[in-house]
């Protein structure tokens, strides 16, 4: 589905990622781990065309999307649920969905909206209220619902659990599992290592913008190098924050 080879990327003159190889197969949940500042968010931004790519190649469903504009990438079926949710605060819940409906798969807006409401019934209740009045959890649901409006083949989730109550986290992750079961590939960036590896099929760990370890979820969970990533990265992160 998605494959990244030899990626180096950053913002402006600052290079953050280098030598990244990564693969997401159809229907798979792949998790990206790493300490603060390891370059996880930059990785997702690089895939969706939001930062400067200095080297490497990104292909999605066999098409090279390395130099593509972000909106074209999204319209090609690669949805990105960005860090901090980025809900349009001044728009209503339903309008947030309208924006993301780019008419890709051919399903009408109403059908897709009903599908999203079926996943998150609370959104139906609050469909006409301003998004700024939603709670954090509801906003996260809206962000995921919104990402689904493009009928994506792959969804990238950037720390969906951040700042949420444990009960909500379980609910969100259950939906992630459901999506994967429905055939949508997931690329997940997550702080909560234990949960992420429970959920995912395969994992990558970043340290200072480079890949440190990768492997099947269970194998990775047991790998001692994973802990080092967090220890080393933690220090670095503290220094460069």
């Amino acid at each position, binding site marked *: 589905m998605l494959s990244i080879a030899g990626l180096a990327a950053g913002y*402006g*003159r600052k290079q953050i990622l280098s030598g990244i190889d990564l693969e997401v197969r159809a229907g798979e949940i792949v998790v990206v781990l790493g300490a603060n500042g390891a370059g996880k968010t930059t990785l997702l931004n690089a895939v*969706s065309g*939001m930062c400067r790519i200095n080297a490497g190649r990104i292909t999605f469903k066999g098409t090279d999307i390395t130099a593509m*504009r*972000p*909106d074209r990438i*999204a*319209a090609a079926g690669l*949805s*990105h649920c*960005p860090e901090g949710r*980025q809900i*349009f*605060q*001044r*728009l209503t819940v339903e*309008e*947030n969905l*309208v*924006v*993301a*409906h*780019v008419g*890709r798969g051919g399903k009408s807006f109403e059908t897709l909206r009903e599908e999203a409401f079926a996943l998150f019934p609370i959104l139906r209740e609050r469909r006409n209220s301003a998004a700024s009045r939603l709670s954090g959890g509801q906003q996260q649901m809206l962000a995921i619902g*919104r*990402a689904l*409006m*493009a009928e994506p083949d792959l969804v990238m989730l950037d720390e969906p659990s951040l700042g949420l109550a444990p009960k909500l986290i379980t609910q969100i992750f259950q939906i992630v599992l459901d999506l994967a079961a429905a055939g949508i590939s997931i690329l997940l960036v997550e702080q909560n290592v234990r949960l992420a590896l429970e959920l995912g099929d395969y994992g990558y760990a970043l340290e200072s913008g480079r890949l440190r370890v990768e492997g099947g979820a269970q194998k990775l969970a047991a790998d001692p190098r994973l802990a080092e990533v967090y220890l080393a990265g933690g220090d670095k992160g503290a220094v460069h924050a």
Partner: protein
Amino acid sequence: MTGIIIQQIFNALTIGAIYAMIALGYTMVYGVLRLINFVHGDLFMLGAYVALAGFVLLAPGGGLVWALAAALIAIAVFMVVGGVGVAIERTAYKPLRNSNRLAPMLSSLGLSLALQTAVQITMGPQPIAFQSLFPAIPLDFLGARITTVQIGIVVAALLLMVGLKLFIARSRLGVVVRAVSENRRTAQLLGVDVDKAISTIFFIGPGLGALGGVLFASYYGVMMPTMGIIIGLKAFTAAILGGIGSITGAVVGGFLLAFFEVFGTAMLPILTNGWLGTEYRDIFAFLMLILVLLFRPAGLFGEQTSEESMVMKRDF
């Protein structure tokens, strides 16, 4: 006395309607690009000239033919000046989207100067008489003298503004435009063609401003190449007063500024016992603006956001 007050209210409403139409263009562009589009005042001027060209070309007779021609001309003005707006955005602002915020503003100043002089060279610097879009019939109303032109202008402006509000609130493109103005990056991330949304704004804003120019020329019966400067500045002040970026704010700001001006002209000499004359009217309008901003630093309807400084933070 009531006659005078009603008269003044109508005077203010007419000017306010025109200010509001132009202020909308400033506020919409600002909402998306954070840019003071100085060339907007000159697009307003261009609208009047395009309408004049339309009248010369069509040379409509009276009655229904006239009404039809006027409608056609209004549409043509909207399309032509809207197109010019989009072209300006593509050539002069798009390359500057990621540079410091002063750059596009000053590039718009340069274009403003160029556009003004270009019209002056081709059409001559002299004011040209303009036939009103509406028939001028004076109506006496509670001691006030109101013309059908005034009513026509207020009605036309209100219809256009309601139309715009509906478009922005209801249509998908309108929703997209709002999303882009709130967060361009995220909108793009969701598959929105941001360039298209920005073009939409640079089509509608100048289009409305140009129609404002036609209404203006209809009201005063005269147009000239430099007419955009002062009106543009006033409409911009109105947009700031209402809270730049807010559509409601632009409309309210336009009417409010007109009321300040009209009643300032009327009341200043009386209130200050002749000490301050009407020549202080503009000062009065600016002082009101400063006062409003002191209590509401982001204008009446503007959202108080932590805004970056005008000049670029980093220069990479």
